[in-house]
């Protein structure tokens, strides 16, 4: 003992208790000395027997006893420390003291302390050597230790802690509080470490047991492993599993783990009478009660009888937790301490409880597995039987399938009635077959109003409806049930492939069925097969009816159909073809036979047309047929050629029509037409003759008139001489004049005669009527007075010339009395005397106003039509019958880039039709001219540049007066762009449809597995199915949101909420969204430090940045860097239309880059470079398209710069000022 220590100690004491007087301190010291002496006498203290096992001390419990091993050579110091630790201490310490290390080591062989206080300076070996020796002696035990020393050196402190000491105390500064605090802290720390290790060990145990449960289906093995591990961990004497065998608590110990075989209770059945009020405690355990008893003898809650029972099986402390299966108490998991009482700690109770839960899982799992095995075994048996029956049925399809089926069912299931019925309409069903004790009985009708039937027909998902009570009430109109005392009724709905109910299969039995589950299974299996067979039969019946209808229709219409397999030269005729050809049905038909039936004059033509059809032309021909009775029939035959993949004709099929009657009618019509034509010709000849006669009469009249003039002259000269003759002539003349005046006066044309001085000599009443004057008025007027001003000069000229023109004809405008214009055609001829001397003019004037109006209207029509053709935005082409261009309109020139001069006269088919479709268009052209077919047609044409444009045409045939085609007019519309847009739209819809259906497929398939209970949701497959469905839903949601976003942006339904925003804020928001993704991908993002302003919709710009940066992250390699740059950009001086300044955002990555040809297309919808990216990278293929729409709506631009394998830079610009203001300023 170092006296300095004592002095220091005293000083410390004095310092600590500076309020005490000197006398008080001396008294305390004396007291201490006395105590030391007393303690020295009690040296036996160090030999106290301790339990080897060391229960864990919970420092929260004050009553816990804690053993402290103190190794200190100074007796005074030991006494001081003991007093420090025992006086006023809340803890209950048991202190074992040694003055040297060697004795302490010996004590440690059989004992374990909770904490050690070791003096560094000890005789023999120092404190650290002691620790080292102790560690070698007790390898696994580690008692926490505090080293005490006067040498307050840092190096020593470190050395102590390295050697395993938990704390280091300077004796010189030791105080009661300091020591207590150090001991408490070290104990607490040690407790926590031990607690942690124990918990880890427990967790490991639970995990191992859980793992073994998942690996094994063998309950005994699981129990044995669990109990052994549990006993090792709890260090108790016995753990066991008690399984209940009745509700009064009786049961059996089915598994155990014991420290000593003598304690074994395995296999014992416990039926102790002490289990009083068993239902109560059983119920308590069922509800989850945990029973922890430290000391059986001291526990007053136990009855004496039960205490005795426990004592008999050597129980001093016990811990019991229940094992529950589906709310029933299955058994108990029990831990016993047999050699001593025991305090069960909370973690121990928790451990037992956890293991009981694992045991519950194991029991449940093994139970389910056994049940599944049993069911599988049963199912296999049933399946064997079903397959046996089914194979028998399959072999006999075609015989009466339904009778066979129900007889088999009746036999196998040993039931009274099996019945299969078909729905005839919504209210009634008719039995297809009924079997009574394996005998087929009469069919009957069923009333579907009986409620069970509607239930059967309502449950279409292959479920069996079962009725076992009150059948007579339920089936009020069912003869068999009412009369045969039926007790059990099973029914299943038969459905077709579209899940529509078409019938039902029922079983009726007079008592309850023993194996109703088997019957249900058979109904399910054969219900679906019977449904398929019924559907097949229904379809066959429909087909037969349809065939019969077709044959009947063909017979009525005299139409037959035929097939010819060219390769094997096999010809097949429908029945009506035989009738049409007048050939017996038994006749063997070949192609040569068919040719022989054709009229000799038509045979070559038919053969040629057949050959042409096989080369790809349409087979449509009419020919004559010679019946065996030599009657000639007219046949029309239409055919279609069938080509194989290589384009070779392999077969033909088509129809044959007997058109003899039609042809006869046509011939009759032709004959009538010819008759009519003849008649018309005859009438025309008659008319011509009459016309000629009239002409002759007119000439004659004119001649007579001349003669009359002559006569008048003659009369005046020879009046006196030839009085008699004159009289006669006068009479003749009078007659003639009367005749001709009648002609002139009744003529429908005007007649006007002028003398050589242009004075009117005669005007007939018709002429006066035409002009609106009286004859007298007109006679007084000159011809020129009545002519319209526009024609006066030419007429004057004509009049001057007329003496030289004996006959002339011209159009002339008269002005009527009422001022209106009258167009006339004037035929004038000079009147001359016998010597040829000019006497005047005789004019025949015809009113042609109507013709002139019609001509004007026609001209106007032509003008308008030309104007339409010149301005219409449609292509107009006129071709002659050889296909040469006769007219093209200006729009044609615009589209085809040819001038009309370059086009007119060129052949359309060789000049404007691309080579690949010229053959087709040639046929179409012929058919248009011949049959007026193809009034609408679509085909590509070549324009001057060689480019192909797709045109849709409306064709009209031009005909001459005889109705023969002379050419065609085609009006065309250029639909190249429209067609392209439609293709793009169709492609987009197709892609969207595919993109939506892909996740839908995963979702539907997964959910159907779970919904149909095909996989257990708790199994690995079930969990994966749920995960696949959830992934699918996530993807679908992303896709739908993106599609909606892009459609809203494009349709303008999203209004940008533009404000002035700060780039730092925007970038901050975007980065917050994608930080996690960047961290997961180990990618660093360098952000700009500048803060700039722009006028934009902040949220949308954040959306663009998130899209671009997350793309950059997804395509960046690990540990790479992404640079985000923002710079201000002034307008380019060369761009006079864009004078706004803007901000340029750049997102640069070090990813795989983009090939030059994809730099534009990446911004299109669903245009990832690699389509699989959309799934691998969790994208939708719409992100960049959305970005482009947002940026362009801001008036900005977006683009990408990239070199393959060297990374990409996505750039976009956003104007800094409102665009409206800029426009306004400009």
């Amino acid at each position, binding site marked *: 003992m170092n006296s300095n220590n004592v002095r220091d100690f005293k000083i410390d004491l004095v310092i600590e208790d500076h309020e005490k007087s000197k006398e008080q301190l001396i008294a305390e010291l004396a007291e201490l000395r006395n105590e030391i002496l007393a303690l020295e006498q009690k040296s036996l203290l160090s030999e106290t027997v301790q339990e080897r096992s060391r229960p864990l001390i919970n420092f929260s419990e004050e009553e816990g006893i804690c053993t402290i091993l103190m190794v200190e050579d100074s007796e005074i110091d030991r006494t001081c420390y003991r007093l420090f630790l025992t006086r006023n201490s809340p803890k209950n310490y048991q202190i074992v003291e040694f003055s040297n290390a060697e004795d302490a080591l010996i004590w440690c062989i059989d004992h374990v302390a909770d904490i050690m206080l070791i003096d560094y300076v000890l005789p023999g070996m120092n404190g650290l050597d002691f620790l080292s020796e102790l560690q070698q002696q007790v390898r696994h035990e580690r008692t926490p230790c505090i080293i005490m020393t006067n040498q307050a050196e840092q190096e020593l402190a470190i050395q102590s802690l390295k050697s395993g000491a938990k704390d280091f105390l300077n004796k010189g500064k030791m105080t009661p509080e300091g020591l207590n605090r150090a001991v408490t802290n070290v104990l607490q720390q040690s407790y926590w470490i031990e607690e942690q290790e124990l918990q880890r060990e427990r967790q490991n145990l639970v995990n191992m047991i859980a793992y073994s449960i998942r690996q094994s289906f063998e309950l005994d093995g699981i129990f044995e492993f669990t109990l052994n591990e549990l006993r090792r961990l709890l260090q108790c004497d016995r753990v066991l599993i008690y399984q209940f065998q009745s509700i009064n608590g009786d049961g059996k110990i089915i598994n155990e783990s014991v420290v000593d075989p003598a304690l074994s209770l395995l296999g014992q059945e416990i039926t102790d009478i002490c289990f009083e009020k068993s239902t109560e405690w059983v119920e308590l355990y069922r509800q989850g009660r945990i029973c922890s008893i430290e000391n059986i003898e001291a526990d007053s809650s136990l009855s004496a009888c039960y205490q005795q029972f426990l004592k008999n099986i050597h129980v001093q402390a016990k811990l019991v937790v229940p094992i529950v299966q589906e709310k029933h108490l299955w058994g108990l998991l029990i831990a016993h301490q047999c050699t001593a009482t025991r305090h069960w700690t909370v973690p121990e109770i928790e451990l037992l409880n956890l293991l009981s839960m694992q045991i519950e899982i194991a029991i449940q799992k093994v139970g389910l597995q056994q049940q599944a095995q049993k069911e599988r075994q049963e199912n296999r048996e049933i399946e064997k039987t079903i397959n046996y029956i089914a194979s028998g049925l399959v072999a006999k399809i075609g015989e009466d399938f339904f009778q066979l089926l129900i007889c088999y069912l009746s036999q196998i299931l040993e039931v009274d009635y099996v019945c299969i019925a078909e729905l005839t309409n919504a209210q009634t069903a008719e039995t297809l077959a009924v079997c009574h004790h394996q005998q087929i009985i009469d069919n009957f009708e069923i009333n579907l109003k009986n409620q069970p039937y509607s239930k059967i027909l309502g449950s279409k998902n292959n479920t069996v409806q079962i009725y076992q009570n009150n059948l007579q009430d339920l089936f009020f109109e069912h003869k068999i049930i009412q009369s045969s005392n039926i007790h059990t009724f099973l029914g299943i709905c038969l459905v077709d492939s579209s899940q529509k109910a078409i019938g039902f299969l029922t079983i009726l039995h007079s008592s309850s069925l023993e194996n109703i589950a088997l019957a249900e299974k058979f109904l399910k299996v054969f219900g679906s097969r019977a449904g398929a067979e019924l559907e097949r039969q229904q379809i066959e019946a429909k087909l037969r009816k349809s065939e019969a209808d077709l044959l009947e229709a063909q017979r009525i219409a005299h139409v037959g159909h035929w097939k010819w397999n060219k390769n094997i030269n096999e010809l097949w005729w429908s029945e009506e073809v035989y009738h049409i050809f007048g050939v017996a049905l038994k006749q063997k038909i070949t192609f040569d036979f068919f040719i022989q039936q054709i009229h000799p004059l038509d045979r070559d033509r038919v053969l040629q047309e057949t050959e042409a059809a096989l080369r790809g032309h349409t087979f449509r021909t009419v020919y004559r047929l010679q019946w065996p009775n030599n009657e000639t029939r007219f046949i029309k035959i239409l055919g279609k050629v069938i080509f194989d993949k290589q384009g070779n004709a392999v077969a033909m099929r088509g129809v044959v029509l007997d058109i003899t009657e039609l042809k006869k009618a046509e011939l009759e019509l032709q004959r009538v037409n010819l008759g009519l034509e003849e008649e018309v010709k005859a009438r025309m000849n008659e008319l011509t003759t009459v016309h000629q006669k009239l002409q002759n009469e007119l000439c004659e009249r004119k001649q007579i008139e001349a003669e009359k003039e002559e006569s008048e002259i003659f009369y005046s000269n020879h009046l006196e001489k030839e009085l008699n003759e004159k009289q006669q002539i006068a009479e003749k003349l009078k007659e003639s004049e009367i005749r001709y005046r009648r002609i002139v006066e009744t003529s429908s044309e005007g007649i006007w005669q002028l003398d050589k001085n242009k004075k009117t000599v005669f005007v007939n009443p018709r002429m006066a009527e035409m002009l609106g004057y009286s004859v007298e008025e007109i006679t007084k007027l000159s011809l020129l007075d009545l002519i319209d001003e526009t024609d006066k000069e030419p007429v004057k000229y004509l009049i001057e010339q007329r003496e030289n023109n004996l006959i002339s004809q011209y159009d002339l405008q008269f002005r009527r009395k009422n001022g209106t214009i009258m167009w006339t055609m004037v035929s004038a001829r000079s009147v001359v005397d016998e010597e040829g001397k000019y006497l005047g003019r005789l004019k025949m004037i015809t009113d042609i106003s109507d013709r002139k109006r019609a001509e004007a209207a026609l001209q106007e029509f032509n003008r308008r039509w030309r104007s339409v053709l010149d301005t219409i935005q449609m292509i107009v082409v006129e071709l002659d019958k050889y296909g040469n261009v006769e007219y093209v309109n200006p729009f044609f020139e615009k589209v085809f880039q040819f001038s009309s001069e370059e086009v007119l006269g060129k052949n359309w088919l060789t000049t404007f039709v691309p080579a690949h479709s010229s053959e087709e268009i040639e046929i179409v052209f012929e058919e248009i001219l011949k049959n007026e077919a193809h009034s609408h047609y679509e085909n590509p044409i070549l324009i001057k540049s060689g480019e192909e444009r797709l045109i849709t045409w409306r064709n009209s045939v031009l005909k001459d007066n005889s109705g023969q085609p002379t050419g065609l007019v085609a009006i065309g519309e250029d639909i190249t762009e429209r067609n392209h847009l439609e293709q793009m739209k169709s492609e987009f819809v197709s892609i969207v449809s595919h993109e939506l259906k892909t996740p839908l497929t995963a979702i539907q398939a997964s959910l159907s597995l779970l919904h149909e209970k095909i*996989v257990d949701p708790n199994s690995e497959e079930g969990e994966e199915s749920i995960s*696949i469905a959830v*992934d699918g839903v996530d993807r679908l949601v992303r896709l739908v949101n993106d599609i909606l976003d892009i459609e809203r942006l494009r349709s303008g339904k999203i209004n940008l909420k533009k404000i002035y925003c700060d780039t730092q804020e925007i970038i901050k928001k975007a980065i917050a969204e994608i930080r996690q993704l960047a961290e997961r991908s180990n990618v660093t993002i360098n952000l700009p430090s500048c803060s700039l302003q722009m006028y934009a919709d902040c949220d949308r710009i954040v959306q663009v940045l998130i899209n671009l940066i997350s793309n950059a992250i997804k395509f960046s390699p690990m540990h790479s860097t992404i640079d985000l740059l923002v710079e201000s950009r002034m307008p380019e001086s060369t761009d006079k239309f864009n004078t706004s300044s803007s901000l340029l955002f750049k997102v640069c990555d070090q990813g795989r880059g983009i090939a030059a040809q994809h730099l534009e297309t990446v911004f299109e919808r669903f245009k990832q470079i690699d389509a699989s990216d959309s799934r691998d990278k969790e994208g939708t293929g719409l992100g960049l398209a959305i970005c482009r729409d947002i940026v362009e709506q801001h008036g900005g631009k977006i683009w990408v710069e990239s070199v393959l394998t060297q990374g990409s830079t996505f750039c976009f610009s956003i104007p800094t000022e409102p665009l409206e203001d800029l426009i306004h300023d400009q």
Partner: protein
Amino acid sequence: MINKRVLIVDDDLGIRRIVQISLKAIANWDVLSAGSGSEGIAIAETESIDAILLDVMMPDMDGIETFAKIKENPNIQSVPIILLTAKTKVSEQKQFNNIAIAGVIMKPFKAPALVDQIRSILNWN
């Protein structure tokens, strides 16, 4: 009886897995899976396969091209092929009429219906 072995070729992992789970759980068929046409051909050449379920719309090599390559390959050309497609338009389906596939199954599908359709197309009773 030896289990049927079916190869699913689809670029979508979710569909591949759920088809695998479904065919195994419902029909106890072994299912191999390939994420692309070329991978599918490689598997078909090395493994014994009873049928191939082939997605039509795949990147790189689509189902129709994959089908043509399989039919050109004498080692595997006899394996029946069922196309899986989301195409519903008549015009889109016309292209299937001219090729010698065993059948077409429309997406989306329920798991039991998928098995039923495969059985029906291939007469696997």
